[in-house]
């Protein structure tokens, strides 16, 4: 981790509310002014009780949710920073392919397309040649324990844990400099979970920066360089994993 360099991702005063027109225009304040930095090669974990705003934060950075205001500065590979929130949609779509990725908990892979084909195409979109993409996809699937017998299968026919690993494979093949991971191991058994955690650890070793939500505290202890605890749409505390997890456990105890 290189704290001295410029952050690769910098979030400033990010606000997000939802206005539900179907129920009389009710407004839900989900993020109330978030600030954070992510440095090259760093793994930052977001923790907090459900409803604290963890997933909303990831989706607002990626602009799957449209933030009310704030700034999200992306500084890929030391180039000039760009505010994702002020980009036009076409430019943002292009940056999403090469510079920032989002992996959800649920399979977003394309219907009626084989497992290997899906992952290979993800590599192609990120600029790999057809041969390199196919090779990288095979290697990735093997490492994630998706055997060759499943490679021609449509993802819809897979188990929950298999789908999640295929989704992850497509998300981290030829990884962009910034990756947002939204509970990518929620449906995995222990053996597969370990394989996935190892791969995620290698991503940051290779220079990718990761901002992640895990419900699994052991995973956070193993992977995270820093932990940010959210509460009520605000940053409650930032620190080393051991400190924040102790604080988190204490706060859960205090609510009981």
């Amino acid at each position, binding site marked *: 981790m290189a704290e001295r360099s410029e952050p690769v991702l910098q979030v400033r005063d990010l606000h997000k509310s*939802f*206005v*539900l*027109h*179907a129920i009389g225009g009710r407004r839900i304040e989900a993020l109330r002014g978030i600030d954070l930095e992510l440095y090259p090669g760093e793994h930052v974990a977001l923790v907090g009780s459900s409803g604290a705003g963890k997933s909303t934060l990831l*989706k607002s950075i990626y*602009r*799957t*949710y*449209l933030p009310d205001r704030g700034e999200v500065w992306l500084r890929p590979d030391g180039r000039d920073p760009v505010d994702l929130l002020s980009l036009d*949609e*076409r430019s*943002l*779509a292009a940056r999403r392919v090469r510079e920032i990725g989002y992996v959800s908990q649920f399979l977003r892979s*394309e*219907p*009626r*397309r084989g497992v290997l084909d899906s992952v290979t*195409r993800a590599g192609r979109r990120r600029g790999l040649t057809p041969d390199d993409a196919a090779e990288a996809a095979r290697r990735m699937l093997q490492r994630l324990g998706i055997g060759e017998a499943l490679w021609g299968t449509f993802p819809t026919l897979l188990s929950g844990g298999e789908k999640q690993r295929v989704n992850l494979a497509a998300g981290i093949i030829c990884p962009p400099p910034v990756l947002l991971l939204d509970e990518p191991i929620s449906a995995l058994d222990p053996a597969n979970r370990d394989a996935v955690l190892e791969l995620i650890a290698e991503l940051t070793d290779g220079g990718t920066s990761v901002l992640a939500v895990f419900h699994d505290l052991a995973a956070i202890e193993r992977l995270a360089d820093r932990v940010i605890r959210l509460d009520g749409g605000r940053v409650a505390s930032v620190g080393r994993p051991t400190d924040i997890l102790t604080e988190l456990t204490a706060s859960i105890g205090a609510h009981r």
Partner: protein
Amino acid sequence: MTPALQVEGLGKIYGPGGAADVAGTGPDHGRVVSPSSGGVVAAWDVSFSVGAGEALGIIGESGSGKSTVLRCICGDETPTAGSIRLACVDGGGRDLTELGASARRALRIDRLAVVYQDPAEGLDLRLSAGGNVAERLTAAGWRNFGGIRSRAAELMRRTDVPLDRMDDPVKEFSGGMRQRVQLAKALANNPPVVLLDEPTTGLDASVAAAVLDLIRDLLDELGVAAVVVSHDFSVIELLTQRALVMQHGRVVEAGLTDQLLEDPQHPYSQRLVGAARG
């Protein structure tokens, strides 16, 4: 860089009043019929651009004006207002609405292709599948019989039309197969811009899925600029990166497709997504 297709301030009004008919229509008034003249404001103030390799969706209920927009772009209708530019026509310097009818038609041969919901609009059903494709090729100047045959066969292969049916009249084909022939014909001369109007609506679910997959693969591979009109969110989600939501002839929201689906802002978009997602 000039986008492959640029549409600005496009409007289409059926009726006598012209632009004056716009008052009192649109989402705020819940109507497309002018209260003063009875003119129909089918679409108004529609602007967007699409780049090469990009697909833009237009979604809305029937009567929202989405197909009108497409028909104005391809020249089936004459817009009342606005401009349409293609990068491949004078580098975008020419507004297509100023061109004469025959010049407009000529663009359909190799620069601006349309795939209609009803294959009968895009094909001559009496002709064979190969004949339909050959018609488009000869319009572009192909004269060599062997060359035309082999290009037609290549297109049939690409769109999964069995080669042994290439010489059968299209009217003997199923709906899904007709749609594949229409795609083959539309793509015959490698047009840089392709407009798709409800391309899978009306097909059986499994047939629609296969045609949709074919369109997705073609868009992936050909690098064309595409506009996809559909009332079906799953079609828009599968094929496009950006989309517009239309209601009562106006664009009420524009954004990235995943954002429109997961965080729609306009009350109408929220209702549409809510209905589609249950």
